[in-house]
């Protein structure tokens, strides 16, 4: 089971509390995890990455195991600790006022 931590506003939007847990078939990458997340919670489509281009929104970043994965190609395999469920994939909003 893949663990994903999403920002508070998106948890409210998806009506979930705490981390989201997802089954991901095949290779576990940022792309496959986000595909699974959006399939289960369609309201999140467009809120993390663009509908069409799948580009990450400018004020969001991806982290796991103390590493910034934001600029990695989306098909890059995630760390084993994420695949095993030991560590979550973190989707984090920029601290940019507001």
């Amino acid at each position, binding site marked *: 089971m893949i663990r994903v931590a999403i*920002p508070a*506003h*998106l948890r*409210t*939007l*998806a*009506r979930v509390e705490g981390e989201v847990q*997802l*089954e991901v078939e095949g290779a576990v990458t940022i792309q496959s995890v986000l595909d*699974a997340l*959006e*399939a*289960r*919670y*369609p*309201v999140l*489509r*467009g*809120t*993390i990455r663009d*509908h*069409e281009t799948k580009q990450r*929104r400018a*004020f*969001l970043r991806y982290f796991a195991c103390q590493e910034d994965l934001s600029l990695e190609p989306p098909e890059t395999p995630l760390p084993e600790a994420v695949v095993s469920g030991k560590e979550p994939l973190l989707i984090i*909003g*920029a601290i*940019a006022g*507001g």
Partner: protein
Amino acid sequence: MSKVRVLVGTRKGAFVLTSDGKRKSWEVSGPHFTGWEIYHLKGSPADPNRIYASQTSGWFGQVIQVSNDGGKTWEAPGGGVKMNPGGMPQGESNRFVYDTSPATGKPLTTHQWYDGTQHPWEFKRVWHLEPSPNDPETVYAGVEDAALFRSTDGAKTWQELSGLRGHGTGPKWQPGAGGMCLHTIVIDPGNPKRIYVAISAAGAFRTDDGGATWKPINQGLRSEYIPDPKAEIGHCVHRIAIHRSRPDTLFMQKHWDVMRSDNAGDLWREVSGNLPTDFGFVIDVHAHEPETIYVVPIKSDSEHFPLEGKLRVYRSRTGGNEWEALTKGLPQENCYVNVLRDAMSVDTCDPCGVYFGTTGGQVYASADAGDNWAPIVRDLPPVLSVEAQVLP
């Protein structure tokens, strides 16, 4: 006795204010969508409990929310939890994709940027939602970068009416200070195929065939801040209002100038008259008197607060030119708020109620057509939009 509901969009959520027909005592519900910008929310004339809301965020983009119980509960159409992870979600409500199909004519990909160069069309947010007068499932969305979208399935899916961007002047449109937004949608009450829109800073446009073809309707406008003050395109229209009994008469608050047209926008004439300044954002028409109109003059350029720190609504009972200041109950010293373009509304009670919200978080109401005012609430986040509904 009828009930009045006032829908308020703010920088940090939505609020629903309700009262009986006396409009003296109000209940406040909210914030809904806490922390998100609610640019606009509006109820369907065909089903007042069907309310559409534009929920937007610089971090997370655009979401459309819908309520079917007058704002008590909300859902994003097509966005509910889907328990089958293998299934593809259907019709998510936040998907606004510009039409670049060759089949629809002229794919338009750039508009004019501030510096005169061409700039890609990029979706940012929904400024205004205009439900159909007849069909609760049909709603129009005015978006930034400027375009008009329509949903006929209750906001599950959206299609651009690309004839507007593609009619020919699109490459000349440029953003105003607030971005290049389509902020005003007015549907002719007797002819839903006739729709007016306004774009900052391009001007006003009209379709007579339900959105397939469009034409600029800016003749008579004069804007000294553009190279050709009488140009076909480039005017910063702030708001257009209409009275249902006279659909060919339009009133406009432009960046500067209050304007009027009596031939569906084909020709405009200035009716600023004795206003202390003809800059402002809002304009609205009395529900029962088609020649009674309201504006809130604002000092500009850049200041964007009331003249002399006095918050005054101006009313004309002659369709413009002759204006009177309405001040009873409004702060007449040290007031430096703004009233944004979507933040005034009228109700259809008798006497007509008038409402407006400020960037200081106040929502003021008058239950006697503007003679006397009182705040419903004083300390909301900055108010972006106000819409009044009268319920049976």
